[in-house]
């Protein structure tokens, strides 16, 4: 991007200098300006998608985990020769001896029927089926969680057919998958960052080479490396910001499109969605892009200048 020469009267250009960006001594890195913006925009698009996805997955996992970890279910199967009432009372007694339990509510026959019906597809309440009894247990989330293994053992001992479902298997599976997705996303973000650094390094070197004579002249009139580097890095700040904002805008369009598609499909489980605060953290992407560009450009320039007389 070659700077447009300023024309007009001195007064106007002086005013322009006061209010508009101070003009750089270095023309931007040759013709790489626009293409560099596009490349950075692509990188930021990918980074925003990745970051948005990982944040959405985290959010979904957290809300599932929160819902499930505050609750336990005690399942009491009908066993030949056992009185269901006795089974239930034994279980409730065992529960009452365990600290950290807020409530233990036995679900009515109708409640259980309502829960099971979608799975069996018949009106179970009318059938004369042996029904499990369910006790919905709520934990006191402000207290330390009870020893679930001990509780499970106590319940099983209390009466035959009594079982504790802590949803733990399900939780472990979700968390494992979420962690894997997270690790993968961070790896992708790292690759995107490294690629950006490599590209900016390359562009800075090209710019330094293209402006070799200006750099030499600046040295001869007594400019320090620091001055030259700041003149150059200002361009990269602008390029990085522009690319970053463009990439972020594209990714928001993509997220918008995706959520429209998802809302129109009817899925059993609600899919991860972009939360408002996720958008705020996505704003960091262009900032990071500008920072990475500036720091990389500066380091490249300083290293390049250090080799000159």
């Amino acid at each position, binding site marked *: 991007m070659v700077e447009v020469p300023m024309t007009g*009267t001195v007064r106007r250009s002086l005013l322009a200098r006061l209010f508009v960006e101070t003009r750089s*001594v270095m023309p931007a890195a040759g013709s790489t300006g626009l293409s560099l913006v596009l490349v950075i925009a692509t990188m930021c698009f990918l980074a925003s998608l990745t970051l948005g996805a990982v944040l959405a997955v985290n959010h979904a996992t957290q809300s599932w985990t929160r819902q499930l970890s505050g609750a336990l279910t005690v399942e009491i199967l009908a066993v030949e020769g056992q009185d269901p009432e006795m089974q239930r009372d034994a279980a409730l007694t065992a529960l009452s001896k365990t600290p950290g339990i807020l409530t233990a509510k036995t679900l009515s026959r109708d409640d259980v029927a309502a829960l099971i019906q979608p799975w069996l597809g018949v009106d179970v309440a009318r059938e004369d089926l042996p029904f499990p009894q369910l006790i919905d247990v709520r934990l006191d989330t402000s207290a330390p969680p009870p020893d679930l293994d001990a509780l499970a053992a106590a319940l099983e001992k209390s009466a035959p057919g009594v079982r504790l479902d802590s949803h733990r298997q399900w939780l472990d599976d979700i968390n494992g998958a979420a962690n894997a997705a997270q690790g993968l996303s961070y790896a992708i973000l790292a690759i995107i960052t490294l690629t950006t650094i490599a590209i900016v390094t390359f562009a800075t070197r090209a710019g330094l080479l293209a402006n070799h004579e200006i750099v030499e002249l600046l*040295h*001869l009139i007594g400019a320090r490396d620091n001055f030259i580097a700041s003149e150059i890095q200002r361009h990269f700040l602008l390029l990085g910001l522009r690319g970053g904002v463009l990439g972020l805008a594209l990714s928001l369009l993509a997220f918008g499109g995706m959520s429209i598609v998802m809302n129109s499909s009817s899925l059993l489980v609600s899919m991860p969605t972009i939360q408002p605060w996720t958008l705020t953290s996505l704003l960091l992407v262009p900032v990071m892009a500008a920072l990475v560009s500036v720091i990389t450009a500066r380091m490249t320039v300083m290293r390049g200048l250090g080799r000159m*007389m």
Partner: protein
Amino acid sequence: MIRFENVGLRYESGPEVLRDVTFTLERGSFHFLTGPSGAGKTSLLRLMFLDHKPSRGLITMFDRPIATLARHELPDIRRQIGVVFQDFRLIAHLTAYENVALPLRARGKSEDSYRADVIELLQWVGMGERLDALPSTLSGGEKQRVAIARAVMGRPRLLIADEPTGNVDAEMGNRLLHLFVELNRLGTSILIATHDRELIASNPAPALVLHKGEVEIHG
């Protein structure tokens, strides 16, 4: 203040352009540097404004041997030297005004502090009407005057000018020489490389004459 002792210079593996060059420039002195084309005038000046290192010999600038200078000390020495390059070396995308302001801008000065001085100096060299002109729209003599203004702008202790009157008519040449004399009177040491016999004749200053890579002092 400035001393060359047995200085030799060869570009890469080429022949020696300078050999055994020895001379001293005192504080506040005024010298011409002459010699036939290709004699090595520009090469000698490049050594002096720290654009190139000598192949051998000792150069002392402002009482400091330059061989011992660390890289980060060079800017401070260079800021005491104003240079009018033979090929001007104006920055193509900056206006005349911005080119002249460059030495001060590179020193981190704010524009408010130098704007009036830059404009005044450009007016003095007859470029007051062309402040916003880009170098590509200037004639050779006009570029030369901008280059001179830039060299003078940083109030150097030493002004080095390589053919500073090569592209202007005799009248402008005298006016520019007068600027150099004026600066010299204020304490700046001046070294002017030139072919212009009239210019040398019009001023009683001594001349360093380069011949076959060696320097003789005349006058």
